[in-house]
């Protein structure tokens, strides 16, 4: 079976993808709001100023959100999905909630999709919450690689840098039933 191939978002995605409040899964004033943020780096360690990051996550109770309204957020419905573009420094940020456990015994993560000019297809990765529980994907990776999938806890949130290439290159994922 052949599936439609991807193509780069190109340099003009700002016309079609970003929208007001895209990065605010909850208002920053929400009592449980955390900032998930980081920088996207290229193979020479420079920030990538023209990339788009999307996140998709469970709510704090571990439930997968099924509500609509991401494009016109009402400030109360947690849709679990957001989109942010990087700034001139390659920095992105979201205001969101800490995801809960979706399946017993698994460590919570935020699913992340990366798009950029110069990136011919989207990339998938996971931003895991820091923790000690065993996790099959993480435990199967060498330590240096594993760390690229684990967000760093900060006072008011989580830091998750993404390295497209080179030193500290982020582990990107593929799934069964995708053409490669």
């Amino acid at each position, binding site marked *: 079976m052949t599936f439609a191939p991807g193509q780069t978002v190109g340099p*003009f995605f700002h016309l079609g993808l970003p929208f007001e409040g895209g990065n605010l899964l909850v208002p920053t004033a929400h009592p449980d709001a955390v900032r998930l943020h980081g920088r996207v780096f290229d193979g020479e360690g420079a920030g990538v100023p023209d990339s788009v990051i999307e996140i998709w996550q469970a709510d704090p109770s571990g439930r997968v959100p099924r509500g609509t309204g991401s494009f016109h957020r009402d400030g109360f419905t947690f849709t679990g999905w957001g989109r942010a573009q990087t700034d001139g420094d390659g920095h992105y940020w979201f205001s969101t909630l800490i995801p809960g456990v979706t399946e017993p015994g*698994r460590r919570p993560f935020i699913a992340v999709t990366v798009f950029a000019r110069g990136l011919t297809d989207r990339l998938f990765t996971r931003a895991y919450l820091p923790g000690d529980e065993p996790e099959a994907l993480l435990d199967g990776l060498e330590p240096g690689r594993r760390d690229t999938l684990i967000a760093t806890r900060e006072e008011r949130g989580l830091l998750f840098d993404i390295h497209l290439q080179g030193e500290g290159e982020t582990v990107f994922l593929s799934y069964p039933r995708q053409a490669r």
Partner: protein
Amino acid sequence: MEAKYRLATFAWSSVANVTTQADINREIDQLRGSGGPQPRLDYPPYRSSVLRHPTRDRQLVDPEGVELWAPCFGAADVDDAEADLTIQRAGEPLGERMVVTGRITDGDGRPVRDQLVEIWQANASGRYWHQRDQHPAPLDPNFVGAGRCLTGADGVYSFQTIKPGAYPWRNHVNAWRPAHIHFSLFGTDFTQRLVTQMYFPGDPLFDLDPIYQSITDPKAREMLVASYDHELTTPEYRLGYRWDIVLSGTHRTPLEEQ
């Protein structure tokens, strides 16, 4: 303006070590058939990819939790009028009015219902409504070039728009992109997320374009080319193009569906 641009082009090509279309063609030829049905991430003829592609293989993993589901969009997100890119401004945009429609199915042939489709594109002159596009082609005050819609119960989407023009870029000297519309799609699983570009049949720039050719399998590449469909054409009003899209396979079991 035209004379000034010609001069600029002349100055460019007189500089030593510039990359010409012939250089890019050679590189494209060398990589033909070297990748699978998806674009090569490492594709040097597309110069911006050189420092932006991962060098390690992607890690195969079974989707779990949220990855088995896609975000939901609905009438709260998208207004019906957003599917018509010709009515967003005070007047009628210039160019060839067209409809593009098609059916989105998953890898098992099931229609992708009630899901979000986003598009963006250049105007009829090949100019984007974007600060970074400053090439000497006119903006059209009546055409922005971005739209959204939701698929119906049958997985069908439809947009009314203007046929975009080809546009020049600076990958190499005299680089031109074939006319295209950017499409952003969601499936029923997170893993089906797709951003791609739709092209028009018979474009003379296909062979010269390193972005289109980053998909090195010709059969896969052709999946991105819409077909002209006279049945969709409306007398004295607009031309019709059909483009069906197949996303990858899903992972949820019927039990999880309930």
